[in-house]
């Protein structure tokens, strides 16, 4: 019971907000409910695609595969590959921190991991979903710029970090 409360604390807060608001502004609250539900229903098909595509990538694109392409000898090419691979990794960032940590310990370059984390901001499976809200031009520009920045970020991070360590 306590655990359920903690797990669903956000949902419960939203639910309680609705109940309280419905006493004071029944009309407005009902409109909010309608707006939210319609948005959800519109997004449900793409959301289903996202979860299934994510689980596909998680199973068939193993961390080992990713690790293979980002050894220490990797130059700029490695950084770019790291960035591109980063866009395909799915899941919340904090779940992936240990994975990135492992990569560093196993000898991946800081620039490659930095670029991967940077590029992780592009969530490939989510792109059609995002475009549904913001339009394709917006998403295309964001993706291109984020990818380019991820490469620069990786290289600069390595420079700064290695410089400080000396």
């Amino acid at each position, binding site marked *: 019971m306590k655990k359920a409360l903690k797990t669903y604390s*956000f*949902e419960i807060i*939203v639910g309680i*907000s*609705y109940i309280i*608001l419905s006493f004071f502004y029944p009309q*407005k*609250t009902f*409109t*909010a*409910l*309608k*707006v*939210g*539900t319609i*948005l*959800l229903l519109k*997004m449900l*098909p*793409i*959301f289903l*695609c996202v*979860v*299934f*595509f*994510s*689980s*596909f990538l*998680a*199973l*068939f694109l193993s961390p080992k595969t990713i690790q293979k392409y980002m050894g220490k000898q990797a130059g700029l090419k490695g950084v770019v590959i790291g960035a591109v691979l980063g866009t395909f990794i799915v899941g919340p*960032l*904090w779940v992936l*921190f*240990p994975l*990135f*940590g492992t990569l560093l310990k196993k000898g991946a370059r800081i620039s490659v991991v*930095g670029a991967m*984390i*940077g590029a992780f*901001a592009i*969530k490939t499976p*989510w792109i*059609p*979903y*995002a*475009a*549904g*809200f*913001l339009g394709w031009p*917006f998403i295309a*520009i*964001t993706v291109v*710029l*984020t990818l380019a*920045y991820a490469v620069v*970020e990786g290289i600069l*991070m390595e420079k700064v*970090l290695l410089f*400080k360590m000396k």
Partner: protein
Amino acid sequence: MNISGTVIYAVVVLVSYAYAFKKDKEKGKKGIEKGWKQFLKQLPFIFAIFLLIGLFDVFIPKSAVVSVIGRGKGFFSIINAALIGSVVGGPVSSVYPLGAVLLEKGTTVAVAAVFMNAWIMVGFITMPFEISVFGKKFVLVRNIFAVIGAIIIGMITGLILAGSIL
């Protein structure tokens, strides 16, 4: 929501799974199970997020949004968007519809983009965990670069789409 995008995405998912089942039937099944489990797990949260967006849409007046991150406030709005986006965190599924609502409420393209970029790239809440994996220096450098990147990318997005970096 554009229907063609959804259809294309559904086809991509189907093709992925056709490949998956051909390559490894057990793994393919596991993928579907995993995806479905993820869906059920995330559904309550997603629903709550959309209901919250409904509330936000109906109850938060345009003027409130405009006064903090609105048009005509120049760089002030950009910095605020970066700050709010960095501190508030949550699944990407919620940030895109939120960005769309912000645009509707009268922020500029650049401000909405900065907000979303910061939300995705900077992890303020998960920072302690990130530090435990990578160490303070790495995390500090990464997040500083992430904030700078969020602002630059957002401003360029605004420049390209709306002809203004602010």
